[in-house]
């Protein structure tokens, strides 16, 4: 497979072709089976986190170090010249001159796209406000491929906050390239945005809006859970909807054998702890896969062949 990701900015899932998504997934699998410590040898990666992050930053930094690369950067924008009023455009022009690639997270939507217009080296988006978080989607896809053996024709339910959850939007966009069939399970106030549903309509992808989580469980291959944030509701309303979007082990009795549960984490109480011991739970392995997916992406962006 030709590596079309070489020297490319990684900003948003809709920028990827189906082949490119498959290439990342295939490479992640290979690096998980046969670890390499030389793919980023001699490369310096800037890790620029203008807002805090735990998993994304640490898994990127782990990925770089395990591949033999070096890393510079910061974990909090408060200590940078952004605080003195420097534009992001100027910051990234300079950081790009120091490094071979820049991984960045920023609180404003569009920050990574903007950075890509000014940086002389590839920008990898580690999250831009509520917009995109493409590497989360890549690790989700890798976890799905790993557990299902395919990305094709899967039935996937998304549960919880589908309105604000950026990981849900990107994964829906990615899986729609593989003819998925979707169930969207959410309270009305947190329903999937119109623009995503319109995109699915245009592509002829089947989706169904449902209000009960239990009723879709026997139908699906992947259950993608997200957190419903208490602060988006008043207390009475929250109590009313809360129970409908909590997954407990006894709800999994009729699940297909291959069905796996994913969650971008952190979870609060939307997945009961008793689910962890079931063979369907896969969210912790999924989080670990973040390192392999990011290793794959960094290797492909910085090497013509991997």
């Amino acid at each position: 497979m030709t590596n079309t990701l070489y020297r490319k900015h990684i900003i948003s899932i809709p920028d990827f072709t189906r082949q490119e998504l498959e290439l990342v997934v295939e490479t992640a699998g290979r690096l998980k089976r046969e670890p390499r410590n030389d793919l980023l040898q001699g490369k310096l990666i800037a890790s620029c986190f203008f807002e805090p992050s735990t998993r994304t930053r640490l898994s990127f930094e782990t990925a770089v170090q395990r591949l033999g690369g070096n890393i510079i950067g910061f974990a909090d924008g408060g200590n940078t010249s952004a605080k003195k009023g420097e534009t992001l455009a100027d910051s990234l022009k300079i950081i790009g001159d120091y490094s071979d690639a820049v991984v960045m997270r920023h609180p404003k939507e569009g920050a990574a796209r903007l950075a890509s217009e000014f940086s002389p080296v590839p920008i990898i988006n580690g999250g831009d406000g509520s917009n995109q978080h493409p590497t989360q989607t890549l690790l989700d896809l890798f976890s799905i491929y790993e557990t299902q053996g395919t990305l094709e024709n899967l039935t996937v339910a998304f549960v919880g906050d589908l309105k604000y959850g950026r990981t849900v939007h990107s994964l829906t966009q990615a899986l729609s390239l593989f003819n998925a069939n979707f169930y969207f399970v959410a309270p009305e106030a947190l329903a999937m945005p119109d623009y995503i549903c319109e995109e699915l309509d245009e592509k002829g992808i089947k989706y169904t809006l449902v209000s009960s989580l239990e009723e879709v469980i026997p139908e699906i291959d992947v259950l993608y859970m997200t957190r419903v944030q208490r602060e988006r509701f008043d207390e009475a309303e929250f109590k009313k909807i809360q129970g409908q979007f909590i997954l407990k082990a006894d709800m999994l009795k009729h699940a297909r054998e291959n069905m796996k549960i994913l969650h971008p984490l952190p979870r609060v109480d939307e997945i009961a702890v008793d689910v962890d011991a079931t063979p369907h739970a896969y969210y912790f392995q999924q989080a670990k896969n973040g390192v392999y997916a990011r290793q794959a992406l960094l290797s492909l962006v910085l090497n013509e062949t991997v």
Partner: protein
Amino acid sequence: MQYTRTVEALKEGTVIDHLPAGQGLKILRLFRLADTGERVTVGLNLISRHMGNKDIIKVENVALTAEQANELALFAPQATVNVIENFDVVRKHKLVLPETIEGIFACPNSNCISHNEPVSSFFYVKEHKNDTKMRCKYCEKVFSKDIVAEVR
């Protein structure tokens, strides 16, 4: 009904005609035509043989480009844009909905990076059912064209 010329003829410049009545001032504001420093004549609620009522804008000494004319298509697809030289129409722009629009409208998303940085706003334009949608290149949010026009 007798049709009489109610707005003085233009020697050099651009005539934006057949704007739906009520759109004239909006177009003037959106496209900052008054900021050109040139003489601008605006006619509101004029009688039109085809439209009943219409608005018209004449801007002296400014020749609208095809791109600028197409941006008008978002709000008044039936408008005509004629460039005048020495009292003659030298170009008639046929309005086509543009694929992208740069620098005219601010992004309605207040958390979009385009507000704080040295870049022009940039939208991809897409017709959807009976609406025209605009997607910001930076924050990737999708807005109805009327929402985008409101914030300018």
